[in-house]
């Protein structure tokens, strides 16, 4: 009898939990003043989005990014604070296109209950790249500055919709940001065009630069595909080494969010073919640099990447 009573108690406990979790799932948030009278609370995912919201929102927004510098958006681990950042946000902005993995699916569903948007929503679908063997678009859209302009417009639209009384503030900030982006776009194009045509080949460990390559006219070869989970095969390394050696491309690049062993293996394989290539430097891929440094912003990160690529691949130094 004692045993039975204990089990009954456990069943009741389980039922109570179920009911309890139901009540708890209802959103209970603190009273909030209308957004026009205070800063708009925006929660973002990647450092690039955080930076763009800072630029467009200015003093009107209080932005908090879930992911710090150097975080692979796919492997992001949430902390206890992130629950409140999401719940208390007036607006949640994320990358979308599968960049945030499972969390992205969750945010897409959350859009029905809370103002949430993927910044890539504003990009025309025809502008997206899809790799062979994948039915899904490549999410690394931020390396095409023109596509980033689309994303900046989406951010401004969402802020203006939420806080219409200050729509003109967002408009003005957006316009100055867009002007800066247009200049950056031209600058990157010019730097990449300065690379001798035969050496215009960007070799990286994983495939994050397809949009960059398309926009700025540089061929892109990656040792491994989009997935950071599968390891590169020897055949992959040999294939890219052959390409480097025959084209006599002086450098390959490592990425901030991927281990460098594959690139080291590549350089060894290239050396066996009698051609010595070097490491061109570390490119920012899935996140910008430390806040407060020039690379901590989106524009700084893109500029730094372009400069590294151009100088390592033999573009003459910048004038002035």
């Amino acid at each position, binding site marked *: 009898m004692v045993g039975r009573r204990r089990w009954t108690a456990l069943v009741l406990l389980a039922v109570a939990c179920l009911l309890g979790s139901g009540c*708890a799932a209802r959103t209970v948030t603190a009273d909030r003043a209308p957004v026009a009278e205070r800063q708009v609370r925006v929660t973002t995912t990647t450092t690039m989005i955080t930076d763009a919201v800072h630029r467009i929102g200015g003093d009107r927004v209080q932005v908090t990014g879930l992911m710090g510098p150097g975080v692979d958006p796919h492997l992001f681990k*949430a902390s206890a604070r992130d629950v409140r950042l*999401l719940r208390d946000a007036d607006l949640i902005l994320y990358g979308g296109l599968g960049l945030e993995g499972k969390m992205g699916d969750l945010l897409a569903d959350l859009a029905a209950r809370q103002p949430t948007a993927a910044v890539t929503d504003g990009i025309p679908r025809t502008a997206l790249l899809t790799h062979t063997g994948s039915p899904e678009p490549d999410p690394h859209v931020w390396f095409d500055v023109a596509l980033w302009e689309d994303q900046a417009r989406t951010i401004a639209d969402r802020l203006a919709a939420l806080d219409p009384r200050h729509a003109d503030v967002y408009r003005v900030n957006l316009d100055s940001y867009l002007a800066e982006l247009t200049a950056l776009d031209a600058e990157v194009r010019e730097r990449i065009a300065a690379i001798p045509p035969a050496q215009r080949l960007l070799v990286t460990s994983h495939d994050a630069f397809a949009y960059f390559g398309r926009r700025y006219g540089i061929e892109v070869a990656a040792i491994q595909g989009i*997935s950071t989970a599968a390891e590169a095969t020897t055949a992959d390394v040999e294939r890219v080494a052959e390409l480097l050696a025959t084209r006599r491309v002086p450098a390959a690049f490592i990425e901030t969010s991927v281990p460098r062993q594959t690139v080291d293996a590549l350089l060894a394989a290239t050396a066996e073919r009698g051609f010595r290539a070097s490491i061109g430097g570390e490119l920012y891929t899935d996140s910008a640099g430390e806040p407060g440094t020039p690379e901590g912003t989106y524009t700084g990160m893109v500029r730094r990447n372009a400069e590294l690529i151009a100088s390592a691949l033999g573009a003459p130094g910048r004038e002035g």
Partner: protein
Amino acid sequence: MTADDLTIVLVAGLTATACGLLGPFLVLRRLALLADAVSHAVLPGIVAVWLIAETRAPVPVVAGAAAFAVLCVLGIDAVRATGLVASDAAIALVFPALFSLGVLGITRYASDIHLDLDSTIYGEIAFTPFDVVTIAGVDLARAGVVLAVVVLLNLVLVTALWKELRATTFDPHFGRVTGLRPRLLSRLLLVAVAITAVSAFEAVGAILVVTMLIVPAATAFLVTRSLAAMVAVAVAVGWVGAVAGHVLALTFDSSIAGAMGLVCTGCFVVALVASPRGPVARLLRGRRRVPEFFGGDVENPGPAPSPR
């Protein structure tokens, strides 16, 4: 504590309950690493679902993962049953084979997409309050609903087969003689663990499940003298981990699952030190003999104690 915090604690508590009902059997049958094995062995299931349906949606992914989880545990059971390989080696033989199959599958067919355990099957407990389903007009945390169902299934299994599971856990040979079917019971238990693990991975992430299956049960093992008490204490320790772990995570803004796991491990250390059979008690009593536990010593548990 906000409503979100309450949801997280309740979901973790349900995980603790589902796991605490099965964990003691795993610890006593020396299958403690089973959940860890399952967490890797599901990879080919995810690749297979991708190849067949090109989807990463939760339902097909969980189904594919569950199929390989069951294959994994039955494989371990089969290797063990040969009598030539011990339990630990059986686990270590089966899951790397399945994981390798998954890695080969990704390299061969899916290197151009992000197909990995983190982005498909492993959930994150922090996000459970944001993933809701509406049932009869009430918004429920989806993870809570899934885990409540798992708790009920495990409860039914363990209560219905309590005597049989207990007898075969402590002495499979005795069980066979008395007409029980130890192999069948063992398989049922392992399949329950596989289903529990996969559903809970999807709801709250892998590390919390691996922790909740074993650490509370191992803690309970140190401080109880009957199987029923061991199960009850395992569930209770899991709940302590859920509540205190969440408070810890909020205080230090850390990973929620990590903090809960750490609290459970803390409970284990306290139990180890303060157990009636632990070093402190031994020093106080001034004797070295390990008192009788479960009718035998820890290395070789004897038959179960007679029912009270």
